[in-house]
């Protein structure tokens, strides 16, 4: 009888320690299944992605000053990789829609106000909005795109005719030094 109680006690101890470990990271079959799906879809890294024209994008530079948007000419160079936005998500306030020659919407994406700056640093966070900015609209390298429309909080701001992807040379604005 004592032997039986000892084994039951041992079982309880093991069970408790086991549950303690599981608290660190629980097995979640539904998540595991989704992770497996994600893993099956992500492919492998290819260093030649820079040459993949089918998955590239280009940039249109836009100035905002005196409450007006104007397109900066001379920057529709193809860039490697797809544009970084989740396409066709227009949840955020600033919405970019791009259309073909028949004014049919090809796609869209959204982000917060392009002049917004966010200082989430430390105990005194702050946001501010610049009233004069130059920013980039990133578009899929799709030659059918002929114009784009910008809106903010549901209000249409402007519409541009855009140069086709790859039309001009890169307008590099950065600086810096090579470190290697």
């Amino acid at each position, binding site marked *: 009888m004592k032997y039986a109680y000892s084994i039951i006690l041992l079982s309880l101890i093991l069970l408790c320690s086991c549950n303690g470990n*599981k608290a660190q990271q629980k097995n979640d079959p539904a998540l595991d299944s989704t992770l497996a799906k*994600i893993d099956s879809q992500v492919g492998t890294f290819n260093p030649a992605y820079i040459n993949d024209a089918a998955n590239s994008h280009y940039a249109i530079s836009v100035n905002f000053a005196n409450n007006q948007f104007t397109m900066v000419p001379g920057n529709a160079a193809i860039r490697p*990789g797809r*544009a970084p936005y989740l396409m*066709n998500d227009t949840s955020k306030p600033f919405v970019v829609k791009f259309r073909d020659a028949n004014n049919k919407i090809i796609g869209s994406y959204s982000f*917060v106000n392009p002049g917004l700056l966010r200082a*989430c640093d430390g105990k005194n966070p702050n946001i501010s909005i610049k009233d004069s900015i130059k920013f980039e609209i990133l578009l899929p390298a799709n030659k059918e795109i002929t114009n784009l429309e910008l809106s903010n909080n549901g209000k249409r701001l402007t519409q541009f005719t855009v140069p086709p992807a790859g039309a001009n040379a890169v307008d590099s604005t950065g600086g810096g030094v090579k*470190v290697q």
Partner: protein
Amino acid sequence: MNTRKITGYQSLAYVSLIITMFSCKENPETFAIHAPIYPGNAEAVTYTLNKITGDVSQVQLHETIQTINASGTVTATSAEALLQTWNNPSFPLNFTKTGGYATNRLVTYRFDVTGNDKHYTHTISFATRPYPVPNQPAPVYVVGDVNRVMNLVFIPDRDIPAISTFYNAVKVDIDEVFHREDYVRRFRRSYNFFINPFTGHAHDYDTETRDHEVPSNWDQLSFAQGKVILHDRDIRDFAEPDKHLFSAEHYVKGTLLHESGHNFYDLADEYGGGSHWQEATLPNNWSSLAGCRADAAGRGMQMSDAHQMGTSGWYKLCPATCVMESSGTAIHPYEKPCRDRILYSILQRSAGN
């Protein structure tokens, strides 16, 4: 033959012990890293596998070496080689490749992990230094197609005293930010990390012009969902959301996790006076209390969890411990509503949307 009569109590005891022993087995969870993160010619590389939890019965480490040219094209691929096998291992596991690798190489290592009748792999690639593709960020910890995973480019600030400090900070950020957060680390095939070959310069939000100085190859970085300038000065950091660009001290970890929430998953701030909007799918901010309460049950929360962020007129379900409320030195976890959005975002990205 020695036979013993087993009583009812003894039967119960044996059954409970057996059930306990089987139910105690856990699926293994591990993460892998290499150091240095961006090794130079012939520099020794140490591979490490850490265990988070679970039962691991065997681990194998393999490597494949590719030669790449200035166009990023692979010109030669070695056969995969088995480097080491560990049976019933004690963690962490380490293996050092003495003599390292030559330049112009992309090295892929694979940890095969078996335990509790599960089998999975960590497959990670990194370039040796210098990366031969001009003006491109060097892949230093990449796991998937750039168009199907989240991409983060680390940019050294020109104020970094020694580039080795920066390289080490990148390794620490991958290992101690992305691999330590309880939820994010489960997506072991969803994040690519790069090091930019050109410097930028982060400005102080309070005392300098509110625009970071971007590196000269900026056009080559716009594919990335996140770009972070790691700097040495102690300044008030800020983000430029339209550029997917932010800054952080190279020794601060919480900023990276918080800003990744914005850049990778479109999570809004969870403090009053931050940047607020309501995503159409699985938001972490709501524009009304009624909407926030209505979604609570479906997000694993209670209606009573819904509360306003300060006096912003925006509402949330996450408690104050969520990383989207905090930033800075401490690493807080993402809470359930944010986790929902993380899963959705990564799933969308992996599907090519």
